[in-house]
């Protein structure tokens, strides 16, 4: 493993280690300041490591080793310019968000008072940073999937930070169900199909077997599944419904996860597999279709949003729609344009969230109409917000203008008139809703009577990002040449052309038309309200589809819970029914088709010579005890009769030289009898009296039939087990090797703790859970839990 590879591992490890340290600090009861310092330190170190990798690491940096070798799954690193583009943005915004959180978070926790916890916040932010880095550096597709899901877990924790707030909990669950539950599962099946078809899960090799993959029949299915995963993660139509709800998370989370990083995971996935899929026609219309739909739906819904952050969320949906559309075009130039847009959008949108957070911090307000007229009170924040909003709106000479330019350029290259029209419309929408954001938050209306002073640390993040958007607007080639073009070149090796200069041509003309349309639409926005509502209504119904489905699943779950009605008799019925059903299925359908060569050839254990007198007596005792248990009515005696059966079986084991088994049987019998007696004492005396002296319960035909079938079936199974011994039994192997391998003279012990130790580990886990369950239940019933 080279030095560079070690440093790449360290880059993933540093934020994850930071999470662990935050957890330790929490256990040591440290205060919020400690968590914040740990968070900043880890994020700074990760950013420095990424910068070092960007400057010095060879491309591609590839390293593989085995993990689950039986399944051919490995772990590894694959770091190229594409990974680094994402890593630079992730660590950069992570650092800015944590810096912003220093003053913002305590304020929000104080204001909301809904169970938020600084340790959970900083721990999850670092976990997310580490997971994102792990994902973009993954050298194995299964590993990529694992880190992908880990980002979802961190997002769940952050959205649900204010866990005492039911809305926050619902939003967290919604995100988890959509991004992880649906999208993540689709991605898992997709990468399994891809890996299966490629014969390896190692990322570089999967990518290298492009031609072979394109010829396999699973190609189309894998493509659709990967797209589903990416669309769910990137909040694309029709999965976009989770993103506006997720805005309940603290603002730095929205700036980091829900504008620049988490949603970027989908873009990374599609860009990474771009060389494999991009040639296919299916790719073109499905990815670009999702993109165009999101572009328009997000743009229109942004015009109706009531809260600042919701508007920004819809705008993210729309802007990622642009990126998906570009990815769908499939050409290397369009890929470069997509990555350029992704990069510029990440910077601008994070900055806009920071600006929205400043408004909320200063005024406590979150919605349009309530706040307003703040430009004079918050002049610095207003300048930053205006720069960023106009940049995203596509106004030259800011970076966002070039986003629209490369988008229009790539769209013109497809020669589809409809796409060009939609592109101009979506560009106009962007300017309209960004103007609405700016006017609603800073210009319209009267300023509230009192605003809190905004601390300097909160102005750093939006200031840096606003400065960057001006810088990349004036010199668009800076980011293009250093980061985006190498990243777009990484898959194929050829550097695609990215046209970042002013030309007097159709592209510029269309850009200006879009700007004019957008500005005109904003000025006449009131006239369009009815039309926007009419268009937006069907889009809302997707949200109701989610709510309805979730409610339906919950309802079905509660119906299923009725099986757990607390009546032992019905549990017994169900258990017996299951047993009889299983036996019938095995005997009638499975036995004829099952190959049973392993069950023949061995010497049967029975008959094994004449029965001696002692043994016969013991067997008779067992029979008597068994019959007595259901003749006796007094429960204490019933328990004793059952115990007789158990002890005699123990004695039988001892006579058969199975001392260990006999010992365990006797011990367990004793302790179970004790527990039985205690349980009996727990039944109220009146009920107990009734059970003994009251009328006997009538046996229904069903009960009798079930019991008889269950008993006969068990007897049949036992008979099969003792008359059929396996042809190649494992027992002799244990007997021969126990002492040689483990130095144990007791073969049972050797099996339990050495040969079959994994089974034992599972069993004691169950035992521990059951015991803890009883403890908790009894405390709950007695009202002691708390």
């Amino acid at each position, binding site marked *: 493993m080279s030095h560079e590879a070690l440093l790449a591992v360290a880059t993933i490890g540093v934020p994850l280690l930071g999470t662990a340290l935050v957890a330790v600090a929490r256990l040591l009861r440290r205060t919020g300041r400690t968590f914040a310092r740990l968070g900043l330190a880890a994020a700074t170190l990760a950013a420095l490591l990424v910068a070092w990798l960007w400057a010095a690491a060879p491309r591609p940096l590839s390293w593989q080793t085995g993990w689950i070798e039986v399944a051919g799954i490995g772990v590894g690193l694959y770091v190229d310019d594409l990974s680094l583009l994402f890593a630079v943005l992730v660590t950069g915004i992570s650092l800015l968000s944590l810096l912003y959180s220093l003053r913002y978070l305590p304020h929000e926790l104080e204001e909301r008072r809904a169970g938020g916890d600084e340790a959970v916040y900083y721990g999850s932010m670092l976990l997310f940073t580490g997971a994102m880095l792990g994902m973009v550096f993954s050298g194995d597709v299964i590993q990529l999937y694992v880190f992908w899901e880990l980002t979802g877990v961190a997002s769940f924790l952050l959205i649900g930070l204010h866990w005492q707030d039911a809305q926050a909990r619902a939003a967290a669950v919604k995100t988890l169900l959509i991004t992880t539950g649906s999208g993540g599962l689709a991605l898992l099946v997709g990468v399994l199909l891809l890996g299966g078809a490629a014969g390896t899960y190692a990322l570089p090799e999967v990518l290298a077997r492009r031609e072979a993959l394109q010829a396999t029949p699973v190609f189309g299915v894998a493509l659709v599944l990967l797209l589903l995963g990416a669309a769910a993660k990137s909040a694309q139509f029709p999965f976009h419904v989770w993103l506006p709800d997720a805005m309940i998370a603290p603002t730095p989370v929205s700036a980091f996860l829900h504008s620049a990083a988490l949603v970027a995971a989908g873009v990374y996935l599609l860009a990474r597999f771009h060389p494999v899929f991009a040639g296919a026609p299916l790719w073109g219309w499905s990815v670009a279709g999702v993109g165009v739909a999101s572009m328009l739906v997000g743009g229109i819904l942004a015009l109706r949003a009531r809260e600042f952050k919701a508007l920004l969320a819809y705008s993210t949906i729309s802007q990622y729609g642009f990126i998906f559309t570009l990815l769908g075009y499939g050409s290397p130039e369009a890929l470069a344009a997509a990555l350029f847009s992704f990069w510029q959008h990440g910077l601008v949108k994070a900055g806009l969230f920071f600006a929205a957070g400043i408004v909320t911090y200063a005024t406590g307000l979150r919605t349009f109409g309530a706040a307003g007229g703040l430009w004079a009170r918050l002049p610095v924040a207003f300048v930053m917000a205006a720069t960023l909003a106009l940049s995203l709106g596509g106004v030259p000479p800011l970076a966002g203008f070039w986003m629209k330019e490369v988008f229009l350029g790539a769209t013109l290259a497809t020669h589809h008139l409809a796409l060009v029209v939609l592109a101009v419309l979506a560009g106009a929408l962007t300017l309209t809703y960004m103007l609405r954001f700016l006017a609603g938050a800073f210009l319209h209306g009267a300023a509230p009577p009192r605003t809190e002073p905004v601390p300097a640390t909160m102005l750093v993040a939006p200031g840096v990002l606003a400065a960057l958007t001006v810088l990349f607007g004036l010199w668009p080639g800076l980011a293009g040449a250093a980061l985006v073009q190498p990243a777009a070149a990484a898959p194929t090796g050829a550097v695609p052309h990215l046209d970042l200069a002013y030309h007097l041509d159709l592209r510029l003309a269309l850009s200006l038309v879009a700007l004019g349309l957008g500005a005109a639409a904003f000025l006449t926005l009131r006239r369009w309200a009815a039309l926007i509502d009419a268009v937006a209504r069907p889009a809302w119904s997707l949200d109701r589809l989610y709510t309805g489905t979730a409610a339906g699943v919950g309802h079905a779950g509660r119906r299923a819970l009725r099986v757990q009605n607390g009546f032992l008799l019905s549990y017994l019925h169900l258990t017996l029914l299951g047993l009889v059903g299983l036996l019938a299925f095995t005997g009638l359908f499975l036995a004829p088709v099952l190959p049973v060569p392993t069950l023949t050839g061995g010497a049967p254990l029975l008959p094994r010579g004449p029965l001696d007198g002692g043994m016969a007596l013991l067997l008779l005792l067992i029979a008597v005890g068994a019959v007595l248990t259901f003749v006796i009515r007094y429960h204490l005696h019933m328990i004793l009769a059952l115990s007789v059966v158990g002890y005699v079986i123990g004695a039988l084991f001892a006579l058969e030289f199975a001392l*260990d088994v006999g010992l365990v049987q006797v011990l367990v019998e004793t*302790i179970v009898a*004790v527990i039985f007696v*205690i349980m009996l004492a727990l039944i109220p005396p009146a009920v107990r009296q009734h059970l003994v002296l009251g009328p006997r319960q009538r046996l229904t035909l069903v009960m009798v039939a079930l019991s008889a079938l269950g008993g006969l079936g068990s007897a049949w199974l036992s008979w099969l087990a003792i008359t059929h011994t396996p042809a190649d039994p494992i027992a002799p192997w244990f007997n021969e090797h126990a002492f040689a391998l483990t130095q144990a003279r*007791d073969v049972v012990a050797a099996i339990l703790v050495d040969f079959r130790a994994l089974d*034992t580990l599972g069993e*004691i886990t169950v035992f521990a859970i059951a*015991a803890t369950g009883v403890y908790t239940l009894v405390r709950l019933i*007695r009202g002691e839990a708390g």
Partner: protein
Amino acid sequence: MTPLIRLVTRATLLIALLTSMTYLVGGDQGPGDGFSAGVVSALGLTLQYIAFGYHEARRTLRRFRFERMPPVGLAIALLAALLPVVTGEPLLAILEVHMTVPLVGVVRLTRALLFDVGIYLVVGGGAMTVIESLGRAIA
């Protein structure tokens, strides 16, 4: 309650604990193992509750927090399972070390023994957790 019963009950606990230790340490050479050791200990302790009644036995045994034993035992068993991984062996592989202890001689320590200690705590502690919880409900 006569002093004799007190004495016998107390002595039984001692014998039960000694027996369980024998089972635990000598499990690989004769009958018994971590599981039976756990149950024997639990039976010895249960007898205290039966003979002295819940409250008095609880007072004597208040140092024992049975409900904490299953997770601790599980952690020890997991640790034992992971021990061979440190030296590059597979999970739960057979592992043993020999140590020379003054006056005692060579002592053989195995991964299996540590695993058995985990089982002992889970089973003994778990059984006592159940009996303690239910017993408290009727006390």
